[in-house]
């Protein structure tokens, strides 16, 4: 019975509305008091049923909810035979709840879109070898699954046969299809654009990367900040307090009308719902733009950020050095082959960049190789003495540098290059500058961050100070420090937080820099949507896309502002109503309920604005 009434809430609301219209028409137009009174009375009783049931259930679990206040108020109005008020209040309360549900669903839509991308079914190989469609929950680790063109990959797994290209946008944010063949890893929630593959399940359900992302977002939108927990505690005592106040007013003034009006006006609706609404809309907007924010605490800290600290390699720069410039001196042809032959035997990081630049050439056998620590390599190739290394080493090899060469060297060094010189028989043949390229767009993104109010942009790197200075200048950073080990970086962040009292975000590698990520108020790990990045970060950037940082920062600022606005609206409305009831003539229960429901809709609509938030260029 209770369930039936609650399920019919929308219909009851409609009946209420019709009866109220009949009542007022009867009273005002046809001057028929009987119709007016009876229809308003019936409307009140109908409307009260679901509210009273909810109130009863709340009291059963020892909660004084808004329903309790409204129920008492309506019964009170009945007693003083004010059926107009009782009918209108119940209707407004029910209609308000209906609108709340509709609008709340909107604020949650962004996250719903994400969860709806979760796979539902899978084609599983049964004991008889046939594939049958089953619910995705019935897939266990080790099961063999068939995925056809256009289908969603149901679990994280490994391809055992077949080929295809997969759209991994749901995991990485990158919509360009990726080719997969035997042995490739595939992820749940991604879509097989073409081809047919068979996979073996490695991780299922909530353990898959996609499952973790969903869980993270779901937990995040319901995580509570200090302020929210305060409001919750407050609300727990607030409603009983309003009830007490009502009783007290009645006991003293013997004015039941005033007492029940206070009950209605005191409803805390907008206050309790205002902050969660901003939170869910903000996090939803982020999820849609490839930014996962882990909860409202993160939103608060991130929005008040003073300092952002970056790791250099792989974060601000590409992370794979390449030859940015090469200069040939007389007869370099054979020298190039000699250089390639020597680098071919080296595992130095620069060697890879140089070989990639030279491409396939004839390789000679290398003899008498001698590695000069911190300098380079000297060896004999095809009977010539070949030296490959930096300026200091070549000088110690007594290679004479021409004026032209010296100018070139100075220019390349200034540009932040590591230098590799090649000399054959004491004569300089080739000069190469190797550089780790700055990621495209990073400079503009940093500028945007600054415009959004980040005071300091700091870079910490294990690289030598010279290279660090050049990158720092080029990007317009506040400070740039080189020669730093992971523990030095962590110590530096600790200093910023403890001694300078700053709110700090650290952006870096999820594996090496985990101490810094953990220490900073906000840790942001770069690392292609991997588990480590998801777990260690407070803010996850899908596909490690640096360009989403400014959006993330702007969004958290907008969300935090939105929360504050909602609190102001809610508190302001309650204060206004209470003031009005004591100092004005026109305030009554119906107007109170109308304003109250209006304020709830106002905070929801205000929160909804966040769904469309975009960073202004």
């Amino acid at each position, binding site marked *: 019975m*209770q*369930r039936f009434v*609650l*399920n019919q809430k929308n219909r009851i609301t409609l009946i209420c509305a019709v009866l109220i219209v009949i009542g007022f028409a009867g009273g005002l137009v046809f001057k028929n008091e009987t119709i007016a009174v009876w229809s308003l009375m019936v409307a009140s009783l109908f409307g009260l049923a679901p509210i009273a*049931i*909810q109130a009863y*259930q*709340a009291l059963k*679990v*020892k*909660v004084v*909810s*808004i*329903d309790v206040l409204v129920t008492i108020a309506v019964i009170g109005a009945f007693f003083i035979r004010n059926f107009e008020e009782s009918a209108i209040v119940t209707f407004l309360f029910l209609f308000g*709840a209906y609108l*709340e*549900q509709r609008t*709340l*669903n909107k604020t*949650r839509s962004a*996250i719903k879109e994400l*969860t709806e991308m979760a796979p539902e079914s899978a084609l599983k190989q049964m004991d008889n070898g046939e594939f049958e469609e089953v619910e995705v*929950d019935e897939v266990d680790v080790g099961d063999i699954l068939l995925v056809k063109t256009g289908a969603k990959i149901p679990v994280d797994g490994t391809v055992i046969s077949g080929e295809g290209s997969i759209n991994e946008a749901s995991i990485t944010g990158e919509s360009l299809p990726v080719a997969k063949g035997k042995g490739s890893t595939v992820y749940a929630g991604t879509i097989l654009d073409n081809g047919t593959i068979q996979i073996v399940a490695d991780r299922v359900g909530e353990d898959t990367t996609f499952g973790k992302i969903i869980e993270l977002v*779901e*937990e995040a*939108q*319901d995580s509570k900040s200090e302020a929210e927990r305060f409001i*919750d505690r407050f*609300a*727990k005592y607030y409603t009983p307090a309003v009830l007490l106040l009502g009783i007290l007013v009645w006991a003293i003034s013997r004015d039941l009308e005033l007492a029940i009006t206070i009950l209605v006006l005191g409803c805390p*609706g907008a206050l*309790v*719902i205002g902050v*969660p609404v901003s*939170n*869910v809309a903000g996090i939803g907007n982020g999820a849609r733009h490839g930014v996962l924010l882990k909860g409202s605490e993160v939103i608060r800290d991130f929005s008040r950020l003073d300092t952002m600290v970056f790791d250099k390699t792989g974060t601000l720069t590409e992370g794979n050095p390449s030859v940015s410039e090469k200069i040939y001196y007389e007869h370099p042809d054979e020298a190039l082959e000699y250089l390639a032959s020597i680098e071919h035997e080296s595992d130095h990081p620069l060697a890879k960049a140089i070989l990639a630049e030279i491409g396939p050439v004839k390789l000679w056998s290398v003899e008498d190789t001698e590695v000069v620590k911190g300098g380079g390599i000297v060896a004999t190739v095809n009977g010539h003495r070949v030296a490959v290394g930096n300026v200091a080493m070549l000088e110690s090899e007594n290679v004479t540098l021409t004026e032209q060469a010296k100018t070139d060297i100075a220019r390349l060094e200034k540009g932040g290059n590591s230098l590799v010189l090649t000399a054959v028989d004491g004569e300089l043949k080739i000069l190469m500058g190797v550089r780790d390229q700055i990621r495209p767009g990073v400079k503009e993104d940093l500028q945007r961050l600054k415009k959004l109010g980040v005071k300091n942009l700091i870079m910490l790197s294990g690289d030598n100070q010279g290279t660090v200075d050049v990158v720092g200048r080029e990007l317009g950073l506040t400070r740039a420090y080189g020669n730093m080990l992971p523990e030095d970086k962590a110590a530096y962040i600790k200093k910023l937080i403890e001694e300078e009292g700053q709110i700090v975000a650290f952006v870096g590698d999820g594996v090496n820099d985990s101490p810094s990520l953990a220490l900073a108020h906000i840790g942001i790990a770069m690392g292609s949507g991997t588990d480590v990045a998801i777990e260690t970060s407070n803010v996850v950037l899908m596909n490690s896309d640096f360009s989403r940082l400014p959006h993330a920062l702007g969004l958290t600022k907008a969300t935090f502002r939105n929360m504050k606005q909602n609190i102001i609206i809610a508190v302001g409305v309650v204060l206004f109503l209470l003031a009005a009831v004591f100092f004005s003539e026109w305030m009554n229960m119906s107007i109170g309920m109308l304003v109250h429901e209006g304020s709830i809709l106002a905070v929801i609509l205000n929160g909804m604005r966040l769904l469309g938030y975009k960073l202004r260029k």
Partner: protein
Amino acid sequence: MKSASIQLDTLTCPSCAQKIEGATKAFAGVDAESVKVLFNSSKVKFDFDDEKVSVEDVEKAIADLGYEVKKTRVKDK
């Protein structure tokens, strides 16, 4: 011990969350500490001892409060 996650129809008022939390905690076999009502995702998560209470009992209690149960997932812990 098992852990359950019950998906409900949209929750609209935070006091609903309080009610559901209270009703779930009332069961003897449910670990009261673990009960979490996620207001925005409209989900209830909790750990329970399946010898003392069945997930269907909890589902029914929540449904009786007027919240439609959409989907339930139970996992071993």
